[in-house]
């Protein structure tokens, strides 16, 4: 028997909206409501609201917290209070333990980690942190909503106690009341659209959700399928697909999130060497140039021979062509290279492409 799935505090809201629920990282989560493609387009064109309460929140505080985290995280952590940073945690061999966002708050750091990796991150941090630096798992106490899309501010504005959150820059974070609920409001997300992520007390999420759904032009409730197609159009990696202990940030094209000059984190030597010498394989995004939808696990063919493996694939709701990501030999990863995908025995042509695959950007507000 499978273990019982965990439920977020918004479970009843999802059922009431007629969501198709499914298992993800040990959680019973909404896959889609009315339809994943409509939800995807709503996020690109207006706004969508995601329950991402399954994600983990770890807090690190106390004197020496920053130095301790620099031994665990790949990025430079050169952020003051009120800012976040995309970063990774690696093992000694440079393999990815998790990718995450670390936020600097006035009195602590908060790490928002993947649900499936929260335990691994805790273990990894626990082994690194010295006396006096405290580590706390807040995952069960903190709910998280992602309000994403160009119309995010219109949905949020009427609920804010002060307008300060509307002025946040990309990757900034602030505290405020939203519909009377105390929230951390971060200008982050994983859709490629501007928007915010709202972190609030677990049991208050339904009140926050209801308030957002009751504004004049409410966001469309959006599920994990749309979340996946949105991030894939941007070429953002997903742990378990593009990222794993068997891959390094360098192979995944995440050199920009690694402080190789001053870094003191686990695996830095391996990453430094890979950055200098190159890696045999690199992560590449691609689009199909004929009908067909690539799927994870399928072979990438170069000159007719298997040369790589698809890690994610779908039909892009915006481009209406098959898109995906794959690890391929480094020379093949250059954008514009002709490849093919073995789609269940049928060879379908494709071409590697620059990321993002669509014209979206999370930066304009």
């Amino acid at each position, binding site marked *: 028997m499978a273990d019982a799935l965990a439920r977020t505090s918004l479970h009843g809201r999802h059922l009431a909206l007629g969501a198709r629920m499914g298992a993800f990282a040990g959680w019973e989560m909404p896959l889609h409501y009315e339809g994943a493609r409509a939800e995807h387009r709503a996020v690109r064109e207006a706004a969508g609201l995601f329950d991402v309460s399954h994600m983990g929140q770890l807090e690190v505080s106390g004197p020496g917290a920053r130095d301790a985290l620099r031994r665990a995280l790949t990025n430079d952590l050169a952020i003051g209070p009120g800012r976040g940073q995309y970063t990774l945690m690696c093992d000694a061999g440079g393999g990815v333990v998790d990718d995450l966002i670390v936020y600097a708050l006035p009195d602590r750091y908060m790490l928002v980690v993947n649900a499936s990796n929260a335990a691994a991150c805790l273990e990894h941090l626990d082994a690194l942190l010295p006396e006096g630096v405290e580590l706390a798992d807040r995952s069960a106490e903190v709910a998280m909503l992602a309000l994403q899309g160009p119309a995010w501010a219109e949905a949020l504005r009427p609920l804010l106690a002060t307008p300060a959150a509307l002025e946040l820059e990309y990757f900034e974070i602030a505290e405020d009341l939203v519909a009377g609920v105390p929230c951390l409001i971060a200008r982050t997300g994983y859709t490629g659209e501007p928007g915010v992520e709202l972190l609030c007390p677990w049991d208050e999420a339904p009140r926050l959700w209801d308030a957002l759904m009751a504004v004049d032009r409410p966001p469309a409730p959006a599920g994990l399928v749309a979340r996946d197609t949105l991030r894939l159009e941007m070429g953002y990696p997903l742990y378990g697909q593009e990222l794993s202990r068997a891959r390094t940030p360098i192979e995944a094209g995440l050199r920009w999130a690694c402080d190789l000059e001053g870094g003191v984190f686990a695996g830095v030597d391996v990453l430094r060497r890979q950055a200098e010498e190159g890696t045999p394989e690199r992560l590449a995004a691609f689009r199909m140039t004929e009908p*067909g939808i690539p*799927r994870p696990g399928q072979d990438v063919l170069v000159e007719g021979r298997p040369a790589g493996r698809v890690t994610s694939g*779908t*039909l892009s*709701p915006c481009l209406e062509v098959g898109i995906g990501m794959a690890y391929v030999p480094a020379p093949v990863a250059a954008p514009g290279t002709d490849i093919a995908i073995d789609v269940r025995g*049928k060879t379908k042509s494709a071409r590697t492409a620059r990321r993002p695959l669509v014209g979206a950007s999370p930066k304009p507000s």
Partner: protein
Amino acid sequence: MAAEESYPPDLRYHPEHDWVRVEGEEAVFGITWYAQDALGEVVYYDPPEVGATVAKDRSYGELESVKAVSDIYAPASGEVVAVNQAVRDRPEVVNEDPYGEGWLIRVRLSDPSELESLMDEPAYREYLAGL
């Protein structure tokens, strides 16, 4: 918009959630309401060629949603005489009208007696209730 749940009484049903409508020596195949609902929005249809033979209980093509791929199984054996181009052009027709405009292939049956092993509507509903 997705169709309302229904299982027409004039069809025969295969346990893999495929239906067949017999029209003389030919038959039309498609997937049931249950199958399209489980799959979600259909976005791609990969049909067999006209002239290909299909074998009972074997996959003859694929339907894909944004998230998943589903094999489609032949409820009976025969030769493909037509493929529904409308579904190739607009795959969501399968969700909108699974028993009508969303049909998948038309087949000349090679062994109509195979149909006897399929379920009628009450039997299929009972089968669904047990899933």
